[in-house]
C-alpha cells in the first residue's frame, strides 16, 4: 500500500498531508516564539527605570529589512501562483527573487547590524558616581522633563585594551550624541536616523563603573533578548532559504516535469513557513527597534 493523499486531497478533510503537517508545525513555532516574547515582556516589565535601553538599534536599516522580508513573502506567493499556472520560467525567477531577499536580509543582519553592535561600548555608572558624570548624563534635565534616568554612557571605545587590561584605569569613549550633548531637547527621544558617535572623547574611570561591556548579549537583558530572538529568527530565515534553494535547483525541475502539482504543494508549504517567519519579524521589529 502507498501512503495516500500526498498530492491529492482527502475527501472529508479537503487537505493533503503536508498542509496539515505544516500548520501543526507552525502552531508549535507560535508556542516557541510565544515563550521567547513572553520572556521579553516579563524582563522588560521587571527592568528598573533607566535599565531598558532605547534608541540603540538602527531603525532605517531595520525598516529596510522589514520591507525586504515582506517583499519576499509576495514573491513566494507569485512563485506558487506561477507553478499553479504551469509557468515554470516565471516560477524560477520569482523563486530566485525570494531567495535573494532572504540572503540580503541575512547579510544585512550578520555583516552590518550585529557587528556594529559588537563594536559599540556601554558603561553603567555606579549610583554614587552618577553626579560626577552629570555633564554626560544630564539627569537633572531628564528629571525636570519627567524622563527616566540615564545610567549608562555609550559610544565608541577608543582604548579597547581597557576591557581586558587591569592596569588601564579608565575607559576613553567617543561619546554617542546623547551623552555628548545630554541637555539638548533633541536628545530626549531616540533618533529615527542612525547618528554615529561624536568626536567628543570622555574619560570614564573604571572604579566609577558598575559594569562595562560591548553591546554583546551579556550587556543587558535587552541585548540578551535581542540577540537570542533575532538569532533564532535568523536561523529560521536561513532554513527557509535553504529549502527554497532546493526547490529552485534543477532537481526540483525533474519533480515538476513528473508531477507539477507536487512541486506546487511543496512551494505552498514552504511558503506558509516563510510567511510565518515574516510574521515573527513583524513582531520583532517594533518590539526591539521602535518601542
Amino acid at each position, binding site marked *: *500500500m*502507498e*501512503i*495516500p*493523499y500526498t*498530492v*491529492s*486531497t*482527502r*475527501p*472529508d*478533510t479537503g*487537505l*493533503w*498531508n*503536508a498542509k*496539515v*503537517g505544516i500548520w*501543526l*508545525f507552525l*502552531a*508549535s*513555532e*507560535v*508556542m*516557541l*516564539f*510565544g*515563550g*521567547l516574547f*513572553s*520572556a521579553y515582556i*516579563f*524582563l522588560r516589565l*521587571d*527592568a528598573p527605570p533607566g*535599565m531598558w535601553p532605547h534608541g540603540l538599534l538602527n531603525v532605517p536599516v531595520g525598516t529596510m529589512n522589514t520591507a525586504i522580508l515582506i517583499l519576499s513573502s509576495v514573491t513566494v506567493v507569485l512563485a506558487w501562483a506561477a507553478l499553479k499556472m504551469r509557468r515554470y520560467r516565471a516560477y524560477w525567477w520569482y523563486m530566485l527573487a525570494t531567495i535573494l531577499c532572504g540572503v540580503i536580509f541575512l547579510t544585512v543582519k550578520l555583516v552590518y547590524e550585529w557587528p556594529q553592535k559588537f563594536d559599540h561600548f556601554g558603561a553603567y555608572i555606579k549610583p554614587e558616581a552618577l553626579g560626577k558624570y552629570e555633564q554626560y548624563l544630564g539627569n537633572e534635565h531628564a528629571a525636570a522633563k519627567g524622563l527616566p534616568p540615564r545610567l549608562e554612557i555609550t559610544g565608541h571605545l577608543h582604548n579597547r585594551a581597557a576591557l581586558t587590561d587591569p592596569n588601564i584605569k579608565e575607559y576613553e569613549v567617543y561619546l554617542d550624541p546623547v551623552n555628548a550633548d545630554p541637555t539638548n531637547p533633541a536628545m530626549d527621544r531616540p533618533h529615527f536616523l542612525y547618528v554615529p558617535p561624536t568626536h567628543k572623547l570622555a574619560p570614564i574611570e573604571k572604579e566609577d563603573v558598575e*559594569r562595562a*561591556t560591548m553591546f*554583546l*548579549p*551579556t*550587556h*543587558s*537583558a535587552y541585548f*540578551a*533578548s535581542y*540577540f*537570542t530572538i533575532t538569532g*533564532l529568527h535568523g536561523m529560521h530565515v536561513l532554513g527557509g532559504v535553504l529549502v527554497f534553494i532546493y526547490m529552485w535547483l534543477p532537481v526540483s525541475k525533474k519533480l515538476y516535469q*513528473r*508531477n507539477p502539482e507536487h512541486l506546487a504543494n511543496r512551494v505552498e508549504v514552504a511558503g506558509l513557513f516563510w510567511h510565518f517567519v515574516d510574521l515573527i519579524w513583524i513582531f520583532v521589529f517594533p518590539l526591539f527597534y521602535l518601542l
Partner: protein
Amino acid sequence: MDASTSLETHHHPGAHGAEHEHHELGWWRKYIFSTDHKVIGIQYGLCGLVFLFFGFCLMMLMRWQLAYPGQALPVIGKLLPYIFGPGTMPDGKMAPDFYNSLGAMHGTIMIFLGIVPVAFAAFGNFVVPLQIGAPDMTFPKVNAASFWAFAVGGVIMLTSFFVPGGAAKSGWTSYTPLADIADKGPNYHVIFSGQTLWLLGFIFLITSSLLGAVNFITTIIQLRAKGLTWMRLPFFVWAQFVTAFLLLLAFPPLEAAIVMQFMDRVAATSFFLPSGLVVNGAAVSVSGGGNPLLWQHLFWFLGHPEVYVLILPAMGIVAEILANNSRKPLWGYKSLVFSVLVIGFLSFVVWAHHMWLTGMGTAVSAFFQTTTLLISIPSVIILSAFFISLWGGSIRFTVPMLFATAFLPMFGIGGLTGIPLAFNSADLYLHDTYYVIAHFHYIVAPGTIFGLFAGIYYWFPKATGRKMNDFWGKVHFWPTLICMNVIFLPMFLQGMIGMHRRWYDGGQGWTLSGDHVWGLTGFQWNTPISWAAWTMGLAQIPFIINFFWSIKHGKKVNDNPWEATTLEWTAPSPPPHGNFVTTPIAYRGPYEYSLPGRDRDFTMQNEPVEPRERVRRKTPEAVLV
C-alpha cells in the same frame, strides 16, 4: 503478502506507481535506517526500555546512599569509579555531587528518554497506523528523523556523565539560578560541562518530540481507513492524538527556556539571573535584570502537560486491554473521549500548582488551584469508566490484563494523593517532601510503567508473530507489583513526617525524624524501601529474558491471538511493509465484544454490518467516508 499493493483512490489513481517498484532493502536500510513505522516503533521501544532500566539503575545506586549513608557500597562501589571517574565514588562511598547527578539524571532519563519514547513514540508508532488501517505514518522520513534526533539527544545525555564534573546536578527541573551557575569555572569546559550538555541534549529531544507529534496528528487526521470515523477510533488512538497535541504545544516554550538558559551559560546573559546575585560570597559579574521565576513558569508550562503525556498513552493501552479481556465494550466510550480532550485542554492551565511556594500571590494561586481541581474530574471519569467496564465482564486474567487491572488501583492512589497537593495550603507543608515523590511515582511507575508492560505483552504477538511466556510473565508481575508498593507506600509516611526529597544522607542527620511511623523512624524506612527497589530490579530479569527469548522461541500464534476487534489484528503478524494485505474498511465501532446472536464473542471492525443488525441498531447504514 505483496507489500507493493497500491492503494486505489478515486482522485489519484497511483500517478507515480512506476517509481515505487518494490525492491528488497539492504539490512541497514531495513532495520537501522528504516522509514517503516513498525521498525521505528520497535527502535524507539528498545532504546526506551534500555534507558528505563539505566535510569532505574541510577536510582538503585542512590537507594544505597539513602539507606546506608556514608558507607562503602560493596563490589559495585569499587567498579563505578572506573566508569564514572575517581571522584564519583571515592572508596566506594558516594560523593555528594555524584548523588546530585544521579538524582537529576534519573528524572531526566526516566521521563524524556524512557517513558515518552516508549509510551508515545514506540506504541504510537507501532500501533496507531495499524489501528487506523494506514499503510504507514504520513511522513516516514520525518519519522526516521524524529528517531535519530532522539538517539543523538540520548547519546549527548549519556556523554554528559563522562565530562569533567559529571552530569547535570541541579535536579531534573534545572531550576535557576542554581543551574545557571552550576558546572562553571576554570575546571569546566564551556560546552562540555554536565549542565550545558543537558541543555543541548534537550534541544535534540524536543526536536524529536515535535517531529513525532506533527506526524502523529497528521496521520490520525489524514490516514484513517475508509469508514473509520472519529467516534469509531479505538480509545488508544484518541489518547495518542491528545498526547501529540500536548507535546506539540507544550514543548516549544521549554525549548525557548532551554535556549535562554543555554545563552545564560555560554554567552553570559542574565535571562534567569537577578541583579545583585552573590555566589560563594562574591558578586556574580553579570548584567542581572533576569528572573529565576521565568524559568519555573516556562519549565512547568511543559512540565505539567508532560505529566499527561506520560499517563494518557498508558490509559489508552489499558483501555484496549480491559475491553479485550473483559469481553465487553468499553463502558462510556464517548465520555472517555471527551474526558481525554478536556484533560488535554485543562493541562495547559494548571502549571503553576508546582510553584505554590514561590509566593505568586493569592489570586494567581486561587486560579491555578481551581483549574487543578477541575482537571481531576475528567481523570476520575476515565478511571470510573475503566472500573465499570469490568463490571459483568467475563474476565480473562492474561498477563496483559494483570498489568492493566493493577494499573487501576495504582493510578487511583497516585491520583487521589495528588489532591492535597492541589490545595495551596496543604502543599505548603508537603512541598518537596517524599510525599510528592510517592504521589507522582504512583502515577508514573506502577501507573504508566504497568501500562507499558501491559502493552508490551499485549502487542508482542503482533510485532513478532509469537506470544511471550505466560508463566514468566506472572513471575514478572507479582514481585513487581508488591515491590512497587513497598517502595512507594512508606514514602507517603516519610513525607508526612516532613522528610525532604533531596537529602543526600537520606534524613539521617535530621533530628525530628525521631518521629516513629509503624515502629520505624523516617530514616529507618529507607532500608526496607531500598531492599524493595533492589528486589524489583531482580524481578525485571524474567521480563528481559522472556522478551528476548520469545522473539525466536515463543509460542507461535495466529494473527489475532487475543480475539480482539480493532484493525491492527486484521494485518498479518508481523505486518509486512505497507501493513495490510487488502485495504481495510471499518464498518463498526472499536469494541464490539459479545454482540448478541453471533457465533463468536468478538466482531472485528472490518466485518460488514449484516441486514438483521440494522434492524436492531439505530444507525441504518454503515457510515463510509
